[in-house]
Structures are given as C-alpha cells and as structure tokens.
C-alpha cells in the first residue's frame, strides 16, 4: 500500500510543484483544497492513475474530495482492487 502511495505522491510532486517550490507534501496534504492541484489540472492525475493501473475511473467517482489527498486516492483505488 505504501508503495502505491509513494508512486502517487511522487507523481504529484513532479507534476504539480514548480521548481523551487519547497512545500512539504505527504499522504495527508490536501491537494485540491490546499491549492496544489487546481481543478483544471486534475485530469492529469486521473489519467495517470488510469494508465498506470489500467482502470477507468468514472467521472462520478473522480470528485475533488476523492482526489484531495494521497490517502483518499489510495482509498479510491481500493474500489478497483488496487492496493
């Protein structure tokens, strides 16, 4: 499980933090409500998860809340039997 979380965390850091942005991001950091991932950019995270784990996340499940922390994302992925 922590492997999966680390994979997602690394993706978030590389994708959304600018060079020189030294904000601490961990499994519990609010990504969307904390302003790290804006609503325009969330699609990349969704696509990354879909491609990486070969799943389709329905739009109804890809809510800002479900994507708000790495822990929430891990919970969401459990529904697709990915741990």
């Amino acid at each position, binding site marked *: 499980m922590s492997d999966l979380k680390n994979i997602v965390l690394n993706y978030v850091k590389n994708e959304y933090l*600018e060079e020189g942005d030294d904000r601490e991001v961990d499994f519990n950091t609010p990504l969307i409500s904390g302003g790290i991932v804006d609503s*325009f*950019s969330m*699609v*990349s995270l969704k696509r990354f998860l879909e491609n990486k784990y070969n799943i389709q996340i329905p739009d109804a499940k890809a809510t800002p809340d479900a994507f708000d922390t790495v822990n929430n994302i891990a919970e969401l992925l459990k529904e697709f039997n990915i741990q």
Partner: protein
Amino acid sequence: MAFPEAIRSIYKSELAGIRDAGIFKEERIICAPQNSEIEVEFPIGAAKQKVINMCANNYLGLSSHPDVVEAARKGLDHRGYGMSSVRFICGTQDIHKELEQKLTTFLGTEDTILFPSCMDANAGVFEAVLTDQDVMIADRLVHASIVDGMRLCKAMTDTFKHSDMAHLEEKLQLHEKARVKLIITDGSFSMDGDLAKLDKIVELAEKYGALVFVDDSHASGFIGKTGRGTHEQCGVMGKIDIITTTLGKALGGASGGCVSGRRELVEMCRQKARPYLFSNTIPPVVVSGAIRVLEIISKTTERRDKLEKNTIFWRKGLTEAGLIIKEGETPIVPVMLFNAKLSQDFARDLYAEGIYAVGFFFPVVPKGQARIRTQLSAAHEMHHLEKALAAFTKVGGKYDILHKTKQEIIDKYGM
C-alpha cells in the same frame, strides 16, 4: 426590498476579512488625461500630486495622443455616441467592419471579430469553438480572463508548467485522441514580462495536430520588429489559429478587444460567443480612435522603437543601480522585493518621490515573489526615466537592498 442588517453584516464581515488580509484594493484618483506625467489624488481627499506614471499599460503613449483624440471626436460627430443594439440586430456600423479589417491586416490573420473587451473575448471564444470532445491545454500562468473563459467551456481542461515545452509535449501525447487539442498561452506574461516560446509551441502543435491560442494583450502594437505581436517576434506570423487582444492597452488604451484568426473560428464566435451576442460592441467613438491608432502604428514603427530604447535604458539602469529585475526584453519590468510589506513600503516611498508604481504580492503573484511592476511607455522621455531611476536608487538605498542577492533580501525582510 430592504437590505436587512443580517445580510449587510455578511458582506461587512467579508470586506473586513479582505482588509485584515491586507489585500483590500483602493483606487487612486487620476485628475488628468492618461500620460507619462499625471496628477493623482491618493488617498482620496489628499492634496493632488504630480507624479511620473510607471504603471500604465500605455505602452505606445497613444492613450491621449492628439491625433487619436481628434479621430475619436470626429467619430462621435459622424457616427454618434451609442448603438443601442447588439451587433447582429442593428449594432454594426461601417466603422466596426473597417476596424475588424484593419486588425486582420495588422495581426496577419484571416478574420477578426470585435468584443466589448478582451476579457469578453476570452470569456466567449472557448465555448464558441470547442465541445466536450475537445481539450484545452493551458500554460499555468495564463491571465485570469482565460481561466474564466475555460471554466465556461465544456471541453476537458489540462495545464502545462509555465513555458515548459517538454511538459506541454507530454500533455499533447496524453490527450492525443481528443477531437481538437487547443494549446493556450499568453503571448507576453503580464506579471513577469516574459514571452511565450511561440516558435516551439507552433512546432509542437504541428507535430501533434493541435491548434494554438495566444492572448497578446501585453504585446500587440509593440512586440516584434513592426509591433505585430509575439507571433512576429517568434517568426510564426500566420501560424497562430486564435489571437485575442485588447484595444485597452497599447492600442489607444480605451476599451474593446477582439478574436482574430482562422476564418471559420471567427465565424463560430459570430454565431455562438455569448459576450458578442448579448452585449453591445465597442462604441463608435472608441472604434474611430482605434482605427486611427492602427493607421499611426502601421505607417511608422517610431513609437515601438522609442519604447524599445526606453526599455533597454530602464532595464540596464535598474540592474546597474543594484536592484533585482526579472530578466527579459519586454517593457514590463518587475523589480523584485520578495516581501509583501517591503513592496508596499517601497511603492509608498516612491510615491513620495513623485514616482507612481504599484507593489504586487500574493495572491496576484506567488508567495515570496512580491515586486513592484514597472511598465515603460513611448510617452516617457529620458528625463522621466532618469528621475524615476534616481528615486528607485534612493528608496533602494534606504531599505539597504542595492547590490544584494535575493537571499540577502529575504534574510533581511522575510518572504
């Protein structure tokens, strides 16, 4: 209907919150035509003060140019004050078509449609040309009006890191299957004064079959050898599918904007763009002034050449004085102070020295990147710039930030 105290208090408390956060915006009252020297009343009720204006978007110094004022006056005489109609009912005059034609020629595109403002152009264009089968891929630092326009559109959204071409290419690959992929960027970024890498963006667009959108509001009239804009500077005239720009900055500075580009895309805006369909267009007096502006700048590059000289002088002067500026070549020159309070104090002291410039800090710019944004104009004479430079040097000396590194300034004042 009354405005009950319970409701009034909601807004009072919200406004108090804005004040407490130190981001309450106040207007400064200008008691003169827009120019390089203006008379300002600030705060409201204070004695008027003559200051050198270093923060207008009056890049070409045409806002109060006598020829433009005269043309506007004639327009008022010959075509009246208002249209009392949207364009497609009875709100289109011959001069609206003439201005659209002149903009098409100037920008080197296929067709142009006027909007009440560039904010409106950006609000209307995406929804008019894209559907939910399409994707918009925007630079992360695009102007707020683009962000709003994208929100109104059903197409999928994605972003790429500012001017990061490798990241843009990843996104183009990610969205390869979309019907239309639209790359969205500012031409000249208004807060940092840097230019989009349009040559590289066009190259990627051609490779992946994408379209390119550029908001050139801070470039039209002066960037490029003949002032056509960022696409001229980057050697990609005729290759930008959609350009939006404003008449509210270099091009006379009054108001109005446009979408200029591929014929079919402009026509889609005429059919579907809501700010065009449901709002009056630019009034005849402004249209007449703007036509004159385009005639002036199409005949000679004298004004953009003077602006370029002023910009070189100003950038070199600030750097030699020991201030930190954002590198670049545009007349938007941010003087970096990093700390929000320092940017406010610095601006206040400049004002006392007769220099009008504004400090910007979070949330307008990222945290720790507070600055004073200076903007050059062809209306600045050398004596204006020398006086402004002396003031920046004096105030910089007072705060002991001359010839200091970014880290030294941050150590002294905090982020």
